[in-house]
């Protein structure tokens, strides 16, 4: 389960490739591809590790309240596919 109030980071075996619409995400372990469909989401994922919680990362990029839910859902999807992982605080 993805809890945005916990510390997260881009998974260690995951690489992001910048693309005009956002980024392509690749997991070298599961060999799965995924896509980040906005540049803000790319920045959020890149900097998850610098923030105490995922929510803090969203706030840092001033993701407006009405969009927050869709960002949390995108992060939850990434957590499910192991693209981001829990960090020990």
């Amino acid at each position: 389960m993805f809890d945005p109030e916990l510390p997260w980071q881009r998974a260690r075996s995951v690489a992001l490739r910048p693309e005009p619409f956002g980024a392509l995400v690749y997991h070298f372990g599961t060999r799965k591809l995924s896509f980040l469909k906005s540049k803000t989401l790319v920045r959020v994922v890149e900097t998850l590790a610098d923030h105490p919680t995922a929510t803090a990362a969203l706030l840092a990029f001033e993701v407006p309240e009405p969009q927050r839910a869709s960002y949390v859902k995108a992060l939850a999807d990434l957590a499910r596919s192991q693209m981001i992982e829990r960090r020990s605080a």
Partner: protein
Amino acid sequence: MTAVLPSRPAERPTGGRLIDQFEYGLDAPICLTWELTYACNLACVHCLSSSGRRDPRELSTAEAEAVIDELQRMQVFYVNVGGGEPTVRPDFWHLLDYAIGHDVGVKFSTNGVKLDKARAAQLARTDYVDVQISLDGATAEVNDRVRGTGSFATATKALENLAEAGMKDFKVSVVVTRENAGQLDEFKALTDSYGAQLRITRLRPSGRGADVWEQLHPTMAQQKDLYSWLLANGDNVLTGDSFFHLSAFGEALPGLNLCGAGRVVCLIDPVGDVYACPFAIHENFLAGNVRSPGGFQQVWQNSELFADLRNPQTGGACTKCQHFDSCRGGCMAAKFFTGLPLDGPDPECVQGYGESALAARDTELVTPRSHLDHSHTGPVRGQPTLLGMPAIPPAKICDESPLAGLQLG
């Protein structure tokens, strides 16, 4: 020279569906096929690259390493390696290790000729490598008619070796034809028996495939059955998203329903030429060469041809079709090599518009042919019999046995 392409708008939208973004192309390909050699021990009748003989201009080991370095810089995370038969290149195993060592995973297709127990064990120990064994019949009879006598035995031996070595996630790769379309369940059972995964893809009239397409492409009834089968079994079967034209039967098939040529897909051929798609080896779809200044990146990002391809289609008969959103007019290569316009229906359009378009072709029409043909020029051991050619005919009756062919008694 570039292909005559439908007119399209040029501005990339922000946001929206991924598929719409893909139509405008990416900074690097997602699905890059790299054919390492035109040399092949077999002579399959439908070979998409008309392979057989090695091209003397083939990229050297050092040049191939330089391509890998570049793919690493461009963050192309994996390549689909094929040929020809890639494993007959003496440096194949070195290039495999080199790619993996440079964060470029390898999925390679092989007929299995070099996959003995030792190689199978080596592959099982290697991360980031995927193997696909090609098989075009669930029985030797059906397979060997198109791939050549003994090729079923070679492929199944390789599968056995991989299974025994404990290789994970290897694939059996099938091109669906009129002759094997009824064997889908058998293919699934065969694949399961090796603990492998089944991958089925579409036959295109590319390379030597053009010569047999009329005879081998699935009938409309078979396409319908295939569609139902995919809806029922799709979760456990890979398709390379190659059957998206079937989506026009109704519900869209899962996956990426668009022609990715030059947008997310491309081919690097054995001599370093870059084509929009592995099924489009033709001058009209040749974008450049990795040996030229700026290398592959320059070709991918700046070639005129790819810029032309990177727009959504807005005109042509298909855009008025109610199934256009899921079918997207089908496969560019299939249209091109059957002499149909690129903005019209696919020759296998499931609404039947392809058949009428094929029938309406000018009787004088000469369908486009690739400028390249590396087919073996002489007979090949175990030559396929589909075209009615006997496997290696003896030059004279008495070369085989002095009594052969003689009606005695």
